[in-house]
């Protein structure tokens, strides 16, 4: 197991989420260390996206604690979680479709900017500087994906992008919030093999060049094997296995969860 730092950047302790009697997450302990890529896998309904929603405060937790950089996130609003430094993408791409590509990455820097209505109305120097700064950072983030989201695409509305580019823009938008931890929810879903191979490489570069810790939910085992330092397997809201890809993929409990009882033998 790869443990780069002593202090986890994200830690859930005994985390539970109830949906009226149904336990979507049941006493989950999970730690993510700085500079680490952790994959979360599991069959449908295992609680993977619920885990993301709980971390980003989109659903209420019923028990347990979530600590980010040593401080609890429980009780914070989603926007506060983001400004603490956790960004996410969505499983079903949810861009601001009618805003331009550049506006998408500019608006997600909202919590990093401070100019008030008065700054905007008086068109102060500070306001202009801040606008230029976030536009610049937005372009920088977009250029991470090569030429696909740059140039004339800056001013195109997001819905004109191809499906793969929309997925890329979602990641760019998350990067623009200047996080320390990125949660990617099925980043390669719906992509063809070439595209998912390319994105797999990009996930590695996200960590290496930008220094993010990354948690990724993925069904594509190829991608999981390539990117993960560590794999966590969930089933029915419970962690059933954890370890590197080779260990987890041969774990009888995991095979049972995916393929059904008796398949492991």
């Amino acid at each position: 197991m790869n443990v780069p730092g002593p202090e986890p950047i994200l830690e859930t302790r005994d985390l539970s989420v109830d949906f009226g009697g149904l336990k979507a997450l049941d006493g989950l302990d999970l730690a993510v260390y700085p500079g680490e890529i952790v994959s979360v896998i599991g069959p449908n309904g295992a609680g993977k996206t619920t885990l993301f929603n709980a971390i980003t405060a989109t659903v209420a937790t019923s028990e347990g604690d979530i600590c980010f950089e040593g401080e609890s996130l429980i009780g914070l609003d989603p926007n506060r979680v983001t400004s603490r430094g956790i960004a996410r993408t969505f499983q079903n791409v949810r861009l601001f479709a009618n805003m331009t590509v550049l506006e998408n990455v500019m608006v997600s820097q909202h919590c990093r900017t401070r100019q008030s209505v008065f700054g905007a109305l008086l068109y102060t120097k500070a306001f202009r500087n801040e606008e230029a700064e976030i536009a610049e950072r937005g372009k920088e983030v977009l250029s991470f994906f090569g030429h696909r989201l740059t140039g004339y695409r800056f001013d195109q509305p997001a819905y004109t992008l191809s499906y793969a580019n929309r997925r890329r823009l979602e990641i760019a938008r998350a990067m623009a919030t200047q996080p320390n931890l990125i949660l990617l929810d099925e980043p390669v879903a719906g992509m063809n093999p070439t595209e998912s191979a390319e994105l797999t490489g990009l996930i590695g570069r996200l960590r290496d060049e930008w220094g993010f810790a990354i948690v990724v939910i993925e069904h594509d085992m190829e991608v999981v094997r390539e990117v993960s330092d560590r794999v966590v397997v969930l089933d029915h809201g419970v962690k059933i296995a954890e370890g590197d890809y080779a260990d987890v993929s041969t774990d009888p409990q995991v095979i049972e969860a995916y393929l059904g009882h008796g398949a492991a033998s």
Partner: protein
Amino acid sequence: MSLTAPSDPAPPPRPASEPAPETGPSVGGSDDDAPPRPPFAQDWRRIARMGAIGAVGQIFISLSNMPVKLDGRAIIEGVLSLGYLSLVVLPLAAGSRVGHQLRREGVPFHRPGAHEVVGGAACGALVGGGLSLLAILIANFNLREPLVNWSPILADLLAFNRGTAFAVVIWFAIGAAVGAAAGLLRVVPPLARRVLWTMVLTLFGAAVLESLTTDLAEGMGIEALIDWFYAPRGGLTITGAIALAAGSGVLALVGRGRIKGAKARIDALEGPARNRAQGGLILATAAVLVILPMFAGKLTNELLANVGLFVLLALGLNIVVGLAGILDLGYVAFFAVGSYSAAVLTAATSPRINPELPWFVALIGVVILTGLVGLFIGAPVIRMRGDYLAIVTLGFGEIIRLLFLSDWLSGWFGGSQGITNIPGAEIFGLAEVAGTDPRSVFYLVLAFCAIAIYVSWRLERSRIGRAWMAVREDETVAEAMGINTVNVKLLAFVVGAVLGSFSGAIFSAKVGSVFPASFLILVSIVILVVVIFGGMGNIVGVIAGSAVLIGVLGGPKQPGLLAEFSEFKLLIYGALLVWMMLARPEGLIPSVRRTRELHQEELAQDAWLRGQTEDGHVEHGEDRA
């Protein structure tokens, strides 16, 4: 992922198995090789259906008393009045619409030709027949009891004072003629159509703007010309009408494409050159707006001031609804709070507190108070979404009015007596703005409109404007991207409230008194209709919407250019809104974004196709397409 681009240069031939279109035997390729259609091979069911709907519409319009009431307003002296015009609109629309071809896969069934004219005539005759039927009914039955407008006056109007038989025949004939003309319009070449439409619209516009133009002409000392164009008792003279039609026709011929060309040139400019062009345009508009009232009389200036007040309100609501996407049905509350707080702070007659501040000093208090009320109302409301939010704002709008009306607060605000004798607004000792001098009111309104436009324009292009857009697009995601949606929405609410309060403060100084009855829910609805009609999210659109609706038709209590319409104002508002939602949901002058939202799929397809031709290859496709 198989992709078939719909814009392939040569569309594949339609499979023979495809069902043949309703009546036409033809299965066409493109416009040119589509076969002509015999004139009488009509879709009779469609004609009958549209004719019947139109006939019912005609009867409804007649029984609403619109033709009789509007008959007093001449469009062309002795030829056409607004009343008769209201009776030929439906045959015209039906005659034009019935020839509308369904295009399957972008392919017309047949070439336009005599078929359209015959169909239009048939449909128009049926629509006109509605009036023939009504004439017979009025002659033989008396339904005056439930239908108050079932009167001999209406019968005389329908019969041109010549008896029922004449009415029966003439309305079939008029309907058929108008319907045929509408059908003919579909057939004539586009250039001729454009010229004809320009002529018709010019005549109509000249007739509608009669009071405005005569007023301006008097100010400029060119009454002689106006006397030649307009008859003494209203309406264009026949010679004037012919001259105008000819002039506008020639202009349409000569100016064809010029305006579009100029616009395209401005759009094509970039950077500073474009800014200069736009700046020049804005300056020119401002100059006209400053100079125009100097020549205009009291009535015109009154009208302009009313339009300006609604522009101000609509700009405020546009921030809330158009930018932040919060459907506020109680916007009148802020207008009311602005008016009342200005009244309390400036009037000596205010029952409880009367500091008698100068208007501009009071304005600071007004802004603070309205901002606070905006916060107070907004805080609970803003946590809701969609329909719930709309209903709650509707409630708060009424609550504010009822508070001002209540006995409980009548010691403060005078209850139903309101506050009267409010002094005008004194502008730094330079001028006194009061209702007796509508010109100065207009200038004051104009100044505040300029402020409101600047605020909207600046905020839209700031981090706050972007956050509003994000909230409008997807609130959950906006929150996950670090936007404090509650604060951002509250801010929109407060900014909208403050802009509305400006309008209120000017209103109280202009009218000189405030009563709860001035702040009915109807005002909220009218402002919202103005915003939707003009083009939500677009500053120019909102202004155009106010000019058309408030200027021409009139506001809730303010008469417009067509003062005769006042009784039918709401009916026409409703009809216009329905038509707008069907034909052009993005509004008169839409914002680019709004158009995108409403036509996303079509635009996405276009953009995708462009990408195809640009890249020259299929780039991993839209697999959900």
